[in-house]
């Protein structure tokens, strides 16, 4: 059974600080997605990681993928309040055609 686990589930951090969210998955996957979700809203695509060692950056967020370790990270640099949201990773199983989502990490950035 596929498991996609995120750590931590809840994260409260001060503005200006750095932190990393971890996404572990239990079976072979050849691509991984990161999404952002604001309360009561839909999902906003942040990153698509397609290969081992892939790294993508957008503003204060940087995502990476290690397919051998079955691990992806989302690194937050110098957090600002606008980054407060829930972040989901989602994997696509090899041969499959849909997303399996992680548990989510609720991030709160405190001024």
């Amino acid at each position, binding site marked *: 059974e596929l498991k*996609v686990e995120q750590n931590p589930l809840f994260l409260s951090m001060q503005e200006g600080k750095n932190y990393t969210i971890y996404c572990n998955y239990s079976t072979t996957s050849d691509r991984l*997605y990161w999404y952002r979700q604001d309360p*009561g*809203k*839909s*999902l906003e*695509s942040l990153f*698509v990681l397609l290969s081992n060692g892939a790294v993508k950056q957008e503003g204060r967020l940087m995502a990476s993928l290690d397919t051998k370790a079955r691990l992806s990270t989302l690194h937050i640099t110098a957090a600002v309040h606008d980054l407060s949201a829930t972040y*989901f990773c*989602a994997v*696509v199983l090899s041969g*499959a*055609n*849909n*997303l*399996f*989502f*992680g*548990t*989510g990490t609720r991030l709160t950035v405190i001024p």
Partner: protein
Amino acid sequence: EAEVAQSPRYKITEKSQAVAFWCDPISGHATLYWYRQILGQGPELLVQFQDESVVDDSQLPKDRFSAERLKGVDSTLKIQPAELGDSAMYLCASSPGRGLREAGELFFGEGSRLTVL
């Protein structure tokens, strides 16, 4: 910018009633997905369509849930009878071609939030 349209945005119903959600994907998108997101959890796939055909409905509770996409364009997800545990956000997503693997990403609608009393 083209969007996935869903309605209603909010629905409150009593247990044992019937409820239906509608999704209109981005024009030309052949693949359509329905996901359910229970509060505090990640979305879970309910059903995937390729044109008018069901590709995957293995996680759809078929005793009470049904989904159709008769002309391969818009889709309806129905619950009858609704139960307390069905309270969730129902998200529709679409992608061109043969879905996520070919298109590279899914485009999500704003969702329909269901509350069952």
